[in-house]
């Protein structure tokens, strides 16, 4: 590779995840010279894509790995529902239409699919699972990109950019202790959100953000997003919105990934540090409530909560990384958790007394519920009566943030005056807020990334050749 600072690239891709690599490949296939700048070292390349496992694409019929059709209309209904209407309908429908082609396109880039994983069978019709997971998908994309002649620099953090009147000229790239200027005819920003930037999160969440765990890469610090917004890009998305789930409080601060998730909320009760319940654990199936509990726990004192259940529920959910904390009595469990013994005993006793007899069935919204309890437990409510008793401590685990740059259907960044940038494009989490104003449904992050990544790369190549 010649010194990147002495060249003029057709397309400079900032980021190294799914969106970035789809952009790089599609720009290269469009005839552009392409440089990818990945801020992370090689092992950690790929941002949150490392931890993903599937993408949601519309398709008209079952395939080898999908159990049935998932029409554009149905996809739109799902998206509309999870976002509560907070989505750019035109852009979202465009993405959904384009997603149909992605299943074939992504396979052409070397990515392989498998039937849905054990424990996620509910997604077998709608979502395509990467064989080996997100890192396997990334490996395939990088192999393909590099074989096409895409250049990749690792440990290359963009710390500044020369942007004039919405026109990108060059990026300042930090490698080790040196900062170099790299020029390109077009920019594709695919550098993720700012969830790993605790100081930025604190602007919206205050001190509780110190107790957040970041589920994915520590490299998504939002530097590029900040640069673009400061250069006049039109912001989109609620800055306080983020995809937050309740994960094991013992998880590492960063990059704990999938294995720290706990899907047992529906089978027990959840109490805060005062041993008090604060929401309906059985409101709906776990996947549909997945992104709700992070926010609920974030609102509790010290951002900590405990899922408490008994032996009868101990094998009803996916195993997780850390063992459950165990006690032969509620009092023993409370002591181990550092909770007020009398308070937890009282909470459990009140819950148990409110449980009405029913027929337990974890596969449907069953009739096991409480009566006269605030908050209620609407389904799967069974008395915590069979020792040993167990608990998992949970904290909010942030997956990604929703604040981003506004884009049009060609993935071009829109400036604050409403005009499209001359040569800047965005794909992936950095513009996810356009279609995902709030909420989340499994696999949509990957759809946004690959669809807009592919478009951004194609459009960047076109723009560069003009």
């Amino acid at each position, binding site marked *: 590779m010649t010194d990147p600072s002495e060249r003029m690239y057709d397309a400079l891709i900032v980021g190294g995840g799914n969106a970035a690599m789809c952009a790089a490949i599609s720009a290269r296939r469009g005839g552009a010279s392409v440089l990818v700048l990945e801020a992370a070292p090689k092992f950690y390349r790929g941002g949150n894509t490392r931890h993903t496992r599937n993408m949601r694409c519309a398709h008209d019929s079952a395939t080898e790995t999908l159990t049935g059709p998932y029409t554009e209309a149905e996809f739109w209904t799902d998206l509309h529902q999870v976002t509560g209407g907070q989505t750019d309908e035109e852009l979202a429908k465009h993405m959904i239409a384009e997603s149909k082609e992605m299943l074939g396109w992504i396979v052409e880039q070397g990515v*392989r699919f498998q039937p849905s994983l054990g424990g996620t069978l509910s997604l077998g019709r709608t979502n395509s699972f*990467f064989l080996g997971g997100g890192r396997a998908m990334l490996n395939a994309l990088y192999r393909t990109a590099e074989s096409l002649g895409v250049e990749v620099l690792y440990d290359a953090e963009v710390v500044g950019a020369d942007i004039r009147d919405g026109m990108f000229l060059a990026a300042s790239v930090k490698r080790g202790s040196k900062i170099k200027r790299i020029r390109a005819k077009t920019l594709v920003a695919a550098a993720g959100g700012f969830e790993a930037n605790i100081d930025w999160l604190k602007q919206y969440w205050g001190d509780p953000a110190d107790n957040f765990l970041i589920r994915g890469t520590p490299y998504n610090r939002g530097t590029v997003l900040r640069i673009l917004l400061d250069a006049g890009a039109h912001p989109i998305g609620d800055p306080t919105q983020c995809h937050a789930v309740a994960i094991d409080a013992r998880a590492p601060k960063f990059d704990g990934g999938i294995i720290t998730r706990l899907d047992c909320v529906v089978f027990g009760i959840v109490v805060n540090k005062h041993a008090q319940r604060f929401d309906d654990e059985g409101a709906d199936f776990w996947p549909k409530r997945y992104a709700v509990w992070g926010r609920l726990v974030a609102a509790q004192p010290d951002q900590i909560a405990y899922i408490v259940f008994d032996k009868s529920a101990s094998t009803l959910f996916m*195993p997780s990384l850390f063992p459950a904390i165990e006690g032969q009595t509620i009092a023993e469990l409370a002591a181990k958790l550092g909770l007020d013994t009398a308070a937890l005993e009282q909470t459990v006793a009140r819950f148990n007394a409110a449980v009405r007899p029913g027929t337990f069935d974890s596969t449907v919204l069953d009739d096991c519920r409480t009566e006269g309890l605030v908050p209620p437990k609407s389904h799967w409510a069974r008395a915590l009566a069979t020792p040993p008793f167990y608990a998992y401590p949970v904290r909010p685990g942030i997956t990604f943030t929703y604040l981003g740059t506004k884009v049009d259907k060609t993935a071009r960044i829109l400036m604050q005056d409403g005009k499209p940038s001359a040569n800047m494009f965005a794909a992936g989490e950095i513009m996810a807020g356009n279609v995902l104003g709030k909420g989340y449904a499994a696999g949509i992050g990957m759809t946004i990334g690959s669809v807009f990544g592919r478009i951004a790369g194609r459009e960047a190549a076109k723009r560069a050749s003009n």
Partner: protein
Amino acid sequence: MQATETTSPALIEADRLMVVCNSCRYCEGICAVFPAMEMRRSFTAADLRYFANLCHGCGACYDDCQFSPPHEFNVNVPKVMAQVRAESYAHYAWPRAAAKIFEHNGLAVALTAALGVAAFVAGFVAWTDPSVLFGTHTGPGAFYRLMPHNAMVLLFGAAFSYALLALAMGLRNFWRDGKGAEAAAYAAAGHDAATLRYLDGGGAGCQDGDGAESDNRRLFHHLTLYGFLLCLASTTTATLYHYVLGREAPYPWYDVPVVLGTLGGLGLLVGPIGLMREKAKRDPATKATGLVGMETAFVAMLFLTSLSGLALLVLRETPAMGLLLAFHLGVVFALFLTLPYGKFVHGLYRYLALVRYAQERKSGP
């Protein structure tokens, strides 16, 4: 893990990894190890040995894993499974005292081979006289001018019988850790073993470092395995010729035992070299340390058996025949004796692990 069992650092680490993998499951489409793991929420030492023998060490799960080193979760399934697998060979070995041979298998094989060859050379000389060893012998029964057929049968029969007994006892020990299986499971496992179904990294071949994939390891393993089986078929046919048809070796080049032996021999030349080459190319991070002797000795012996056998075929009508025959027989003798205490057992345990897997898929663990 059951507290009463003797555990090793490798087993403890394998237990930790399976807890991590069982809460992730992204790799379940890659091979049988992960679906077998998913049938459990905790793992006994016997379970871990079973998983280890299901693992072909293709490395795909390492390349695909978001938690592999340098991640703090330090997940390296191929390496740890290789360690547990090697320990399992010793754990199930018969007789118990022979388990230690695995530790220094390379040296043991080399010594046995050297002694075997020396014994056959000395035996030929003692049986006849030095001039016979260096003489030219042709026509049926030429080999037996160096050593009577009955003596050969006695020697090899004894060595082979011992190997079979030791292997069978080892298999029994392994099988006792599982449950019985139905015929269908044996058949399904036979198919998986014969095609090396799980040595394909989930479809695209083995990973050899840096995420590049190839199917070469499977190809070379096939050449080795089927080469070995062809040689076994050659020997069996020759035995039938001798006792049923009364026809004495050596046989002409176009006759069945020679054709089978030659084809098998070629497989055993190319296969082992290829396997060693593929091994050298693999990501060092996924290889277990301290197993080089055991992993190379068996493959080297197969190669030497084949090389000496083919040389014998080419040069059998020259004065070199005597020494070549002694060398060939010495190596084969050593191969037989060391079979139960080296890499050969991986095929048998892996097959039984596949049987167990096929059964568990049907009726649960």
